[in-house]
């Protein structure tokens, strides 16, 4: 009994202090994984914030973006051209989605829009496979997956790059939402479609913008995941990990998506390495969901989510 308690409460911390360099590496690994989750979660937040729709297809959009990019690169298109081409494809996709899926469903229940995005998921998965094939592909964006050592801690170049990109993306999005005319309109639409229409905010344009931005975020996420673990269809499952991230951070908060991602990334890595052996490992697989469940009980709007305003 005492041995068990020692194993849970004391031994892991002794290990952490015992070899700080290793602990730092675990932390960095966690931060990286967390940022990856955040990037996917960001796409969800954008669309949810601006249209109140939970876009189930976000994960598959990440996959689709990565597939398109790899496909273009394989056909000999230079990196810059391939990036521009992929962006164009994602914007076109947003346009088609607005026309075919969203416009006919204005003012419908959220659950109906949600179902529509599930349909979209299956369509995009099949379409991507049809166009680009189902093989696992290597995505090379010219940044070597190499490490250098700073004061005894290994740091991966690719991971650093990913972290910086994510940080910049979040800062830009934050400013966009809080300070610009269009960003304000996006938040207005999220609050009340009809009122937004009544003061002349064109829903069509707004939705096109949001889905395009979500598509671009998907490209960034797709590049990072693809460069790390290859472009394959399991990429769309990453979306499932984004769900607990959203519950933690709050569905409507850009910073929330980042912080939520970091907590889950770091939590699961640290849990796996230090507490994993006690339960035979695989903490990584369930940690996020258990944490999310706990959050739902204690703070359902998440860390940074908007409080539900109720008038009495």
């Amino acid at each position, binding site marked *: 009994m005492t041995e068990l308690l020692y194993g849970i409460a004391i031994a892991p911390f002794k290990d952490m202090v015992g070899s700080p360099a290793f602990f730092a590496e675990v932390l960095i690994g966690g931060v990286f994984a967390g940022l990856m989750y955040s990037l996917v979660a960001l796409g969800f937040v954008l669309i949810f914030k601006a249209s109140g729709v939970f876009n189930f297809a976000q994960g598959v959009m990440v996959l689709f973006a990565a597939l398109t990019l790899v496909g273009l690169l394989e056909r000999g298109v230079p990196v810059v051209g391939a990036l521009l081409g992929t962006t164009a494809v994602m914007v076109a996709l947003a346009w088609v989605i607005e026309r075919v899926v969203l416009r006919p469903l204005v003012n419908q229940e959220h659950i109906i829009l949600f179902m529509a995005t599930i349909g979209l998921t299956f369509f995009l998965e099949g379409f991507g496979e049809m166009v680009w094939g189902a093989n696992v592909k290597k995505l090379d964006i010219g940044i070597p997956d190499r490490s250098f050592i700073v004061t005894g801690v290994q740091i991966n170049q690719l991971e650093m790059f990913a972290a910086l990109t994510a940080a910049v993306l979040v800062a830009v999005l934050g400013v966009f939402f809080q300070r610009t005319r269009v960003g304000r309109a996006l938040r207005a639409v*999220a609050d009340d479609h*009809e009122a937004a229409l009544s003061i002349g905010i064109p829903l069509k344009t707004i939705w096109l913008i949001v889905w395009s931005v979500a598509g671009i975020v998907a490209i960034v996420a797709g590049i990072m995941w693809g460069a790390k673990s290859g472009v394959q269809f399991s990429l769309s499952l990453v979306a499932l990990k984004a769900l607990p991230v959203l519950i933690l951070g709050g569905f409507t908060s850009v910073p929330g998506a980042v912080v939520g991602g970091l907590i889950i990334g770091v939590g699961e890595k640290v849990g796996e390495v230090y507490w994993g052996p006690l339960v035979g490992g695989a903490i990584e697989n369930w940690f996020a969901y258990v944490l999310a469940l706990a959050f739902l009980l204690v703070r359902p709007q998440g860390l940074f989510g908007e409080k539900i305003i109720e*008038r009495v």
Partner: protein
Amino acid sequence: MSAVRDDPRPLLSVNNIEVIYDHVILVLKGVSLRVPAGGIVALLGANGAGKSTTLKAISGLLRTERGDVTKGTIEWEGQPIHRKDPAEVVTRGIVQVMEGRHVFEHLTVEENLLTGGYTRKNGHAAKQDLALVYRYFPRLAERRLVRAGYVSGGEQQMVAIGRALMARPRLMLLDEPSMGLAPMLVHEIFEIVSRMNREAGVAVLLAEQNATMALRFAQYGYVMENGRIVLDGDARTIGENEDIKEFYLGLSGVGQRKSYRDVKHYRRRKRWLS
């Protein structure tokens, strides 16, 4: 008396429109009305008479509710607008303030007002308009950084009107601005609307159940029932009409409020068209 009805060049004219919801439910059966430039016109009637539907037909919001103008025309300075998007209608100068306020709850009061200027291309002019709105509604200036979901009902109504004003409309469609507000506040809001009308020249089409208040500020009035206009005339004439008093004001004779008990049942059930 029918100066408004016979005005040859009205700002807005609604000509005999019919509105059908969901392809089957007929809600407006030939409504015609006119709003002169710079005027205040009241649209009176009980719950479900078709006031909101008329306003939404004008602003174009009808289509998001699966409603459609199937007959008749709506003309804005002689141009048909009943097939236009709400955004297009706003750019042309008509803004609707919806029933039940509909503020953006998670945006601050000031952000709410700023979204109202979305259709304006000139950002600098929008800033000046913000100052103008604060002059009309000093209370909002005090609460500008508070989230609109947390301000009082009266202040929310002010936000909604101020937000609409930011689009620089020439016609404002006001839907039940008095709903759920204390009489004092209703009076305050109507005063501001009429000041806005005098100073900025904004014409107002005002849908109201509170007929006493609406007729005090309007020059002309229409009375609706069951999706039809049943009566129209100068605000004063309507205000003095015994039947109107009976049905909408609860007043009779010398203007004293009379007990509901004294209203004869057959009178209470009377309809204009029966």
